[in-house]
């Protein structure tokens, strides 16, 4: 079971055991991680599930689709090279230990 490490806005760190096949957003909601709002519930329509993902894992992440990349243009916090929409990143075993930072705001 991969373990993901969430860095919340208040500086606290939460380690969460993930099932493969769920999205990072679903995992965050299930684990009650603060600051990932996910208003559209994973439809890639709201851009309020924005996260920054540890760059050393970038090759293990699913490719950015046009749809996700376009929605990322509208995120409320700064868009960085490692910005992703958590609802579009499915967890798999290779992501064990991956750090995920919650941005300072979602809207």
């Amino acid at each position, binding site marked *: 079971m991969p373990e993901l490490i969430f860095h919340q806005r208040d500086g606290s760190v939460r380690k969460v055991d993930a099932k493969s096949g769920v999205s990072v957003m*679903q995992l965050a909601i*299930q684990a009650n991680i603060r600051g990932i709002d996910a208003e559209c519930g*994973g*439809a890639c329509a709201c851009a309020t599930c924005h996260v920054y993902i540890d760059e050393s894992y970038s090759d293990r992440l699913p490719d950015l689709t046009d749809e996700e990349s376009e929605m990322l243009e*509208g995120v409320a916090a700064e868009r960085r090279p490692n910005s992703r929409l958590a609802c579009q990143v499915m967890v798999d075993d290779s992501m064990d230990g991956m750090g995920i930072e919650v941005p300072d705001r979602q809207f």
Partner: protein
Amino acid sequence: MSAGTVIIGASHAGVTCAAALREAGYTDRILLVSEEEGIPCHRPPLSKGYMTGAVSADSLPLKSASFYQEDNIDLLTGVKVTAVNPGQKNVVLSNGKIVSYNYLVLATGSKPRPWHGADLPEHVYTLRTVQDASNIARRAASLSGAVVVIGGGYVGLELAATLRTHFKKEVHIVEMAPRLLRRAASAELSEYVAELHKKAGNFLHLSCPVKAINAGHKTTIDVVLHDDTVINAEMVILGTGIVPEQTLAGEAGLACQDGIVVDKFCKTSDEFIFAIGDCSRFPVAHHAQTLRLECVQNAMDQARVAASVIVGEAKEYAAVPWFWSDQLGVKFQTAGIIEDGMTCVVRGEKSSGKYALFHFYSNGRLGAVETINQPALHMLARRLLAAEISPDMQQAGDVQFDLKGLIGK
């Protein structure tokens, strides 16, 4: 100690309001009462991914069960509020308890419009809850005949799309108005949506009121159209819109008019009572008429406004409405408010399947943007509308023109 806040209805609006109160540092009691059983869930996937199995039941909850515990929010499910007494500042629950409040938030949402006819036969469904969605999916998987969707609104159309592409059904969409999406989309967009449905093999019956829904032989249902034509169906979906749930508010003497009337702070005619989400009717800048919206954005943003007032940091409701719909592999997104009589400018090529419709008021101000498979443009449109920045019509129609450049000028 203050009696705290009671929130009636635990869906997009109610749950967000409770969360926003805690996030803003509210420490009094929060009681969230829901007539529905089970943990509060997202509704949009019910007509989309949940039907096809692409979205699992585990991913429907708005928040996890631990959220309500950690945030000290008392979630009472399967319990209905049966009366509100503004004079005594208390509410009566269906379990007989009486609960006092300091502030009350009505987040009672909406419910499918009741059918006007006599008793309905078996296998006529409406879609609002997870249970409804499961019932529809189960029925769809077991039938071989046709399905009739009555009403060409977004929910009905999404369901029609899913029933066609996933369940491979013969689907008839019967709409009383001359076009689909009469209330929610421009004429130009509804024409495109109609073309997509026809291409997918769905049958459209426009300007076609339904006279009756009768039990046919054995499992079939007879849907009788205005000209007495009969469509035999094995399932009927009533997608005939929703009505705001304002019974409690009306009985309590609060002002209601197709929705519970609120001001720009989501306050009703009683200063301790708010109404948010699908059930509320509110004023909008630049509009003479008040509005009632049926979308997640409105529910969540109004929830935050009510919470801001309760914690003493009042913010007005001034958000740009936005909405999305996924059907037949196409993503439709709307920002702003579509009204009759606006001038429509097309940006991009319709034939490419990626384009946008910019809608202007008669004074040249941009009022709404509908995008088709153009999420970035949708996000930009939200920013333009929020900042009240209007391109002119020529700029809007010119794909070479950099709309982003208008922001920050």
